[in-house]
């Protein structure tokens, strides 16, 4: 039983860690966005305001996938054990 609980906890933590690999994507994407924005501002400094607003908008939207991963990871860490361990206790007969 203790082993099973341990496995559940460990797998949840592992899953959370793996889920956060998705953080790479928004990182790269936002980096690209900011780089392009810097270039655009360098080319046309007078359009700084519009570029900045659009960039922040785009960054926030690009961040979404990362946030989904974060939500999944938080679910795995804080919610999943609480739901899985009672299930285990319910369906697995105590040896």
């Amino acid at each position, binding site marked *: 039983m203790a082993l099973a609980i341990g496995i559940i906890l460990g797998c949840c933590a592992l899953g959370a860690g793996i889920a956060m690999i998705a953080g790479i994507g928004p990182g790269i994407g936002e980096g690209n966005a900011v780089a392009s924005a810097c270039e655009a501002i360098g080319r046309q400094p007078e359009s700084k305001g519009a570029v900045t607003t659009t960039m922040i908008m785009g960054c926030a939207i690009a961040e979404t996938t990362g946030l989904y991963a974060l939500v999944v990871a938080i*679910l795995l860490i804080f919610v999943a054990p609480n739901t899985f361990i009672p299930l285990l206790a319910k369906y697995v007969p105590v040896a």
Partner: protein
Amino acid sequence: MFDEVLNIISVNLWSIIASLLNLLIIFLIIFFVLYKPVKKMLKERQKTIEDSYERASEAEAEANASKEAYEKKLEDAKDEADDIIKSAVVTAKAREKEIIDSAKEESEQIVNQAKENAQLEMKKAQATIKGEIVDVSTKLTKKLLEREINEKDHADLIDSFIDEIGEE
């Protein structure tokens, strides 16, 4: 007391409906309390501004009209002045001519009279000179001849002589 805590992610139908209604309520609040009064005020302000613009343009038109009228009046006055000056010049010229004419006439008259007077004087003088000459020559001849020559013959002779001279 309040021990129960929701999971960090837990879906509940009534909460969703409640928050949906909350958003509707806040929409109504914003619409009736904030948006409508401000919009109404902005519209009124726009209307006031348009009215004042209209009034300003009306006033400008009025001012322009009165300015034109004044300009016209001014021009009329100038014309009138010109007319007055012109007529004045004309009368002045006429008067000048008149004066000059009358002066000329007068002078001519004076000259004529003077001439007449002169002739009269001349005639008078001629007559007196003639008489004197007659007298003188009579005396002369009386003294010279001192004889019985008739005084009457002498006078006739001299008279005829002087007449001959005067005719010459």
